[in-house]
């Protein structure tokens, strides 16, 4: 173990400024040592840029059709080719970034709030709260998760908002369990007892003492499930749920191109699929990298 790694023993609970400096040092070390994480971070920035500025930078209107250029293979004019009604795939893939990322981020934020808080409460209070949260998580886990998401979207209605909700619900058990375990081991910690002794109420302790301390682990969890959230949302839209054509979105674009694969027009489905894959890949690698920074012992 190198000195830089040994340094991070205290990072689990960042209580001092020293620990923050050590984390930053270790982060720099991790990225330098592991170029793959660096690459993932580069991809992440690229995705964010596409999401933020994509619609203003693309060469064509993602919705404009041009039948004279229909089904054109990739060329200098159309980097990723065009689809059956002559829309530019490159522009559509770039513009779609914002929607795909918004769905994933919204669902992860939602489940972070719901699952995280429920889990912390369950771990901190124990008793019936723990029972209820545990039962709820078990019941969700009793279904194959994608199937449950389909059922939820079918029941709530076929909209993008409901895709976000369904994706959040199926991730609930993961967040609740991690938060519960982390809160549980801290409920009798010294700093919690000190806070209680100075007259803080339970809710206050939960929010000001427990929550900040389990934040790093929850952030890793978010990054790790982000890829899964993107996959899940794209899968739902691939089978025709949520996003409706002609809206550019990676899952539905793959579905639109699927019929052309058998006749050899591969680019319609390939590029949106590739974008999807890179996005998921990026978040999975990033999650692994972040986990190495936050929790060096669980290194894979």
């Amino acid at each position, binding site marked *: 173990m190198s000195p830089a790694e040994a340094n991070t023993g205290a990072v689990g609970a960042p209580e001092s400024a020293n620990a923050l400096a050590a984390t930053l040092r270790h982060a720099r070390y991790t990225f330098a040592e592991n170029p793959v994480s660096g690459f993932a971070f580069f991809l992440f920035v690229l995705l964010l840029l596409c999401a933020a500025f994509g619609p203003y930078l693309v060469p064509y209107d993602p919705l404009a059709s041009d039948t004279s250029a229909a089904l054109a293979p990739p060329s200098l004019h159309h980097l990723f080719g065009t689809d059956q009604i002559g829309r530019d795939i490159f522009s559509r893939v770039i513009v779609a970034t914002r929607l795909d990322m918004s769905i994933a981020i919204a669902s992860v934020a939602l489940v972070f709030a719901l699952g995280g808080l429920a889990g912390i409460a369950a771990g901190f209070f124990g008793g019936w709260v723990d029972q209820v949260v545990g039962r709820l998580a078990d019941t969700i886990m009793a*279904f*194959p998760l994608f199937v449950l998401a389909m059922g939820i979207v079918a029941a709530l209605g076929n909209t993008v908002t409901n895709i976000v909700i369904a994706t959040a619900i199926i991730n609930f058990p993961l967040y609740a369990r991690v938060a519960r375990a982390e809160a549980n081991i801290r409920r009798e910690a010294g700093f919690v007892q000190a806070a209680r002794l100075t007259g803080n109420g339970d809710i206050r302790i939960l929010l000001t003492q427990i929550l900040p301390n389990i934040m790093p682990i929850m952030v890793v969890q978010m990054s790790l499930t982000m890829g899964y959230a993107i996959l899940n949302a794209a899968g739902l839209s*691939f089978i025709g749920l949520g996003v409706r054509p002609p809206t550019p979105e990676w899952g539905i674009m793959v579905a639109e191109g699927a019929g052309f694969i058998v006749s050899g027009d591969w680019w319609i489905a390939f590029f949106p699929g590739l974008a999807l894959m890179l996005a998921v890949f990026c978040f999975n690698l990033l999650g692994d990298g972040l986990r190495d920074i936050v929790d060096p012992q669980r290194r894979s």
Partner: protein
Amino acid sequence: MPTQIAKRLATAIPTLIGVVIVTFLLTRVLPGDTAVYFAGPAATPQAIEEVRKNLGLDKPLPAQFADYVKGLASGNLGQSLSTGQPVLSDIRTRLPASAELTLSGLLLAILIAVPLGIVAAVRQGSWIDHACRIVATAGVSLPVFFSGLLLVYVFYYKLDWAPPPLGRLDVFHSAPHYVTGFYLIDSLLAGNLDTFRAALAQLALPAVTLAVFALAPITRMTRASMLAALASDFVRTARANGLSFYTVIVTYAFRNAMLPVVTTLGMVFSFLLGANVLVEKVFAWPGIGSYAVDALIKSDYAPVQGFVLVMGILYVLLNFLIDLLYGIIDPRVRIEG
């Protein structure tokens, strides 16, 4: 063993009840008014009231739940509007297609992933170990519908090795006589090798697609638990006593390493059953997944609810079987039970 089975069964029952409650709730939150939906677009207010009464929607929620459970007990999952058939019989005729696909995919994945994981752990740091890492990361990042389409493009369009991705058998073959519902087994039982080959050709690509998807978690888990087993005291002792390489790896390390792998199978099944839906859509596979997707697109909700319920029950049963398997592999669980 029987007491252990009974004990485990008792813990599966609350889960099953949970599954039924969730599917019931999903039927109650249908977009809009369920009665209006079933009465059709041209219904008068009286007709809607009539439908409401017939469906029992005017009763309080617990009474509706009782009706729902009563219906389930007699195998009534409602009627599909698009096929005109009872949902249960639709699902029953399509289930073997899905089961054959999922199980072939899983089997293929295990056959590749377990040896790969073992070799990666035994030769840690070698090129096989790195290949294993790449497979594991790429496998979880690849959307299953995308990898399926890539395989179709390469093996059907480019190389022309695979038949068109359209269902379980091409038009030149008829389905073998129904015994198990698995075309591969039924055609062999009928002694019809030609049909067997045709069915295998159709199954190959979708099964490989699923296998690629399932490879990642199984490889990762096999490697990790093999590493843990190889570093343990009992393996060191076995080595120190001069047992052969093969005995140490297979009998000592592998058997113990299998336990966490079997546990992950539950999670793998959860992923597989979901991925199955997407693969069925890509390959026009006539299973319950594509049935549910078709119904969903036509806003025909009874089949979707039936599908979610059947999948939920199947998954609970699968987890139950996995636990039993765990007991067979690990005698300690048996003794405690």
